[in-house]
Structures are given as C-alpha cells and as structure tokens.
C-alpha cells in the first residue's frame, strides 16, 4: 500500500490492473475515533450493547468510514503521481463489523483517452468473501 507509485501515468495504467488486495483489521477504537471526529457519535457506531438493542449484531462501521477507507485504497494507488481522484460512487450493502479482518480490493476496468481518466471497481469484503461495500472510482491523470 505504501509502495511508491510516483511513476504511475495514464499510459502505464492497464485495464485489469489490480488495486490491493489490502487486508487489515479494523479495530473498534478506530471506528469510535472516526465517529467522534465526524460528529457521528451515536450508539450503533460506538457501543456493542446499544447496537444489539437496535437489532444489529454489534457496533457497526459508519458507511462513510468505509467510503473513506476505499477512497484511501485509490489515493494510495495514485501515490505521488499527480493524478486525482475525481469521482467515487459507493453502495453500502451490508454492515461492516469492526474487530474482523476486512479486505479492500479493486481493478482498473476502463480508460478514457479524451478525458485522460481511468475507471476502477473497488470493494470491501469480509472473511467469507462477501462484498459488503462496493463502488467505482474515476481517476484523472495530468497531461
């Protein structure tokens, strides 16, 4: 993930290129830190007991935090190349539970010569390979 990709250019990017996979453990404290700093300090994002009372399996990750983690998958891929994340669409399909291993993954799926952009699929999956959050992103490359 922290690999230096400053040599990434529109020309070097190929359809089928992978982003990730990047596997990590999302801790409850990290989710609470996100909830605190973004004004989302509500029980379902901070407390297991209170979340269960809402019918959830335990505290869940805010959808916007999943979006942030996925956008980081893209911006880490961009690195210092000067390219820009210009668009991102996400669907939050299923709650993301902290304290589980999650995997972020993506693929370049299209390139647009006239816009100098690349399109990519991105998603976040759990240990069972279920895609909990899916989306797409557009990256613009400088000429």
């Amino acid at each position, binding site marked *: 993930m922290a690999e230096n990709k400053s040599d990434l250019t529109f020309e070097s990017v190929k359809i*089928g290129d992978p982003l990730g996979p990047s596997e*990590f453990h999302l801790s409850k404290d990290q989710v609470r830190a996100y909830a605190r700093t973004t004004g989302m300090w509500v029980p379902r994002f901070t407390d297991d007991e209170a979340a269960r009372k809402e019918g959830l399996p335990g505290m869940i990750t805010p959808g916007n935090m999943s979006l942030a983690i996925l956008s980081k998958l893209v911006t880490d891929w961009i690195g210092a190349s000067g390219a820009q994340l210009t668009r991102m669409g996400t669907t939050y399909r299923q709650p993301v539970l902290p304290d589980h291993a999650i995997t972020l993954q993506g693929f370049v799926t299209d390139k647009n010569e006239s816009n100098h952009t690349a399109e990519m699929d991105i998603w976040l999956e759990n240990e*069972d390979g279920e895609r909990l959050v899916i989306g797409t992103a557009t990256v613009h490359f400088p000429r």
Partner: protein
Amino acid sequence: MSTTLDLHSHSEASEDSRAPLEAYLNWLKLRSTERPVDGIVLTEHRQFNQNADYRALEDKFGMLVLKASEVETDYGHVLVFGVTEEMTRRFDFANVRLPAQEVIDEIARMGGAAIPCHPGRPNVGLCEHYTKKPPLENVIAVEVLNGGSRKGEDERSEALVQQYGYRAIGGSDSHLVSLIGLCATRFDAEIRTTEDLVRELRGGAYEPVDFRPRRKPVPQAIAVEVK
C-alpha cells in the same frame, strides 16, 4: 456446439449498477481463460428496453448480448427471458409486488421463460416464501449459482432444486465490471438469439457453471494494522 452464457447481469441502465456494457465485454475478453463465456444476458431491474440494440458491440467483441429483465414478485425476484411488448403491456415491470404465479404462467403462455433467481436469498428468494406459502407451480428452473450470493445462499438454492426437481441455471448478478461472468449456464445447444435461449431454457439441456476463484484460507494472523 455448446454455448455458455452469463444469464444474470446489470449494466448502468439498472439504478444500482455502475457497469457500462462495453466495459463488461472488454473484461470478458481480458478474462476469457478464467471465465470462458460466449455472451451475457442483460437483466436490468424492473424494466425492459425494447429498442436497445447491441449489434455493434456484439460484432466488436465477438460476443452475444441478449436482453431480459429482473422483476420483483410476491415470491422474490424473477428473471424474465424472451420479453415481448405483450408482456410489458400485461405486467407493470416497475411494480415490486407482481404476482409470481401469474408471471410464471403468463410469461410462458406468451412465449417466454420466467425463472426465479437467487432462491436462497432472504426475502427476495423462493426458499423463504416456500416456508410460508404453497410452492409455485410450473417452475421450470431456478438460479442456483449467483455471483452475489452470501455464505449459505447458493447451498439453500441447491437444496430447493433437490427437493422440487427444478432445473438449475447460473448467473453472475454482476453490478460491477470486474464481476461479470463469475457464474454462468452451459447449454448443450448453440444459442444465437433470444428465441434460441427461451427454447433451450424450456426444453433443452443445460447446467450451471461456476468460474469463481477458490477462496484462499483466511489467515489467522493480521497483516496490517491501520492506525
């Protein structure tokens, strides 16, 4: 000559998909070894575009592109193959509570094939409805392999097929470019048109095929801590 088709896919015409058709076909070219399909069937949600014409893209990629629809009924979601204007007049495809038995019987009468998809999925699949209501009649096949299935859902679908003797199809249910062709259906016969497809679904020989990569075992150790 056999034909392998992904019978369940959503292009950007479906509100929750982000995949352009051309990118789907390009991806299948790129992954032709891992996902050897001859074409796809677009099953856009709750709609059917009679006028859409994909011949130029079919020629460009040498791949079959057929049109169908995924409608929503009181027994869950149903794929409708061989959609005609008579069918879209008879049923409001945007209605999310269509009567499933009528859909199955009427679509068959009008020359199509209505096949319940992802039966193992909660609420929108047959299995859950069969625990509360009598089983549907005249079901010819159901989708037992679905690329969007969660853990246990395909297994429930397979059990349903075993219990009721339905035939089985497969489809990716892809909403993203890179997920196209992960599940498909292999037909003994050659299929070139929607008429061929409906005829084979109703009376031909076919089986679901799974091109999903085998999952590697989940590592116990945690790779990276993002902190």
